[in-house]
């Protein structure tokens, strides 16, 4: 299994044997960094069956796990479960059966309850270097543009499905025409984004990264204060989106509303 550019993470993993590998762990890293791949790597390395239980978390299901006698690595994607379910797995994390290993995949610590963080050993992905990321870019897309908006191999993979020139044009329009757009026009941008498995739409993170990149170059060219304000607002909401508890659509629409008002302010 090939996890490029994550030597530190892999050497931490190599310190463990099947007897010492923690029963409950968290893998941290941004979208598309390879958290699922890492979980598969762990399962192979320690000869465990891998089962993703994200969609099945319930009291009954967790109880049924205690009856299994096959050494298994259970994977839970924290971005897809609600706080109530996080509370439900606490006991499972604390007292797993001898055949049970649990890995929680999360983009950041803030999306997890402190009680979960306390019970798990952390494995964190490092930021990918430009050189590593270049290995994931083929000649069909603009490499510089791709690396300016993507920070993980998974995002680069998504970018291949994105019409980059259309996305760039949309971001340019936002930079130049927000002041004359109607409010419904502005909000309609939200409908072009993928909030849940709508892969024909733009990924929210890629979209915001492209807006940041566009506003930054527009500001360098025109030195316009309003563009600078839009840039700062975009940064603020990009940061806010890291909190996976929050509803992405509401954040994006509040962001678009703020941009629209800023563009009209005197």
């Amino acid at each position, binding site marked *: 299994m090939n996890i490029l550019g994550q030597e530190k993470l892999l050497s931490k993993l190599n310190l463990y044997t099947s007897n010492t590998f923690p029963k409950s762990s968290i893998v941290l890293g941004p979208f598309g960094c390879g958290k699922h791949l890492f979980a598969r790597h762990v399962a192979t390395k320690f000869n465990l069956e891998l089962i993703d239980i994200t969609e099945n978390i319930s009291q009954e299901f967790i109880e049924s796990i205690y009856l299994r006698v096959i050494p298994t690595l259970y994977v839970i994607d924290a971005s897809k479960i609600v706080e109530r379910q996080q509370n439900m797995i606490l006991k499972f994390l604390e007292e797993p059966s001898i055949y049970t290993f649990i890995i929680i995949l999360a983009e950041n610590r803030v999306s997890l309850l402190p009680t979960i963080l306390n019970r798990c050993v952390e494995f964190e992905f490092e930021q990918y270097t430009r050189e590593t990321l270049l290995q994931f870019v083929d000649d069909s897309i603009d490499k510089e543009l791709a690396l300016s908006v993507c920070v993980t191999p998974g995002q680069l993979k998504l970018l291949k499905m994105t019409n980059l020139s259309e996305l760039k044009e949309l971001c340019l329009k936002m930079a130049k025409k927000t002041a004359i757009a109607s409010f419904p026009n502005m909000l309609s941008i939200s409908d072009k984004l993928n909030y849940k498995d709508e892969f024909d739409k733009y990924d929210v993170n890629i979209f915001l990264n492209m807006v940041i990149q566009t506003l930054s170059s527009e500001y360098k060219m025109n030195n316009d204060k309003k563009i600078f304000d839009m840039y700062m607002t975009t940064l603020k909401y990009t940061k806010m989106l890291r909190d996976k508890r929050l509803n992405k659509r509401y*954040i994006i629409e509040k962001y678009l509303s703020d941009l629209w008002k800023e563009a009209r302010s005197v």
Partner: protein
Amino acid sequence: MEGSKKCMNIIELKNKIEDKTLDDSFLVLQYSDVSFIARQYVEEISNFKNRPIVYVDSLDSIAESIFGDDGMLYVMNTDKITTPIKSSSLNNKIIICKSIDENVLVDLKEHVIEIPKLQQWQIRAYASKNLPGLSNEEVNWLCDITKDIYRLSNEVDKIKIFNKKEQSSIFRLLNEEDNYGDLNSNTIFNFTNAITKRDIKAVKNILETIETMDVGSMGVMSILYKSFKNIINVQMTLNATYESVGMSPRQFNAIKYNLGKYTNGELVRIFDTITSIDSALKRGNLPETKIIEYLLINIL
């Protein structure tokens, strides 16, 4: 007892309702597990005959109108019919029941239509038909989680008032916020409608009821979000038509009558308030119990 027609089966009844050929004869709808289907048939009959339903405890107690037909559809819902029906005229009267005493059955036999047990596929078909905007997976999920038909029907009512295009997104919103099961649909929709119409008196009346009920405030918020977004789309789009804002003509016209209750500036401010509540709540800046108060203070 009037009427000497041969008794119908459920298929014949369905066809007659669809063809609008069902006459005013007395009907007894006998179910085997839940009365849900029988009630659905009663509603369909009421719709096509344009007769409001009046539920009564006993058909015998209905006073005959001195002016003849009073335009109502009288429905008696009982577990078991144990005594003979004595009413002089049984036209436009329906009994929904689970069983009939053998002695009474002899007289009623020709009016009885047996409603078969509700099958799982029928439940899914009911949800799909009412929620054409949901995918099969979403319908299946909703059917599975609601478990019984009454609860499903309650959830279906919440979503079906939105047009086909919006149903999936409102379903997801309600689902994402983990709202299923805690809403009383009538209260919620009366409440949100009163807010969007800026009908302060109605809001006040409903609030008095809400205090004694278990109302999902996040559900209120999700529906207000969708409703205000629709108003914004129509009110703030220059020369809006139903096509330009992607709505059905019916929905567009319904929203058009609610325009102007709030200024454009107020609409933007309300939209900001609604879209900020989620993060305020999840970051611990606003307790869930205060959401409705917060919404009202910032909207009305």
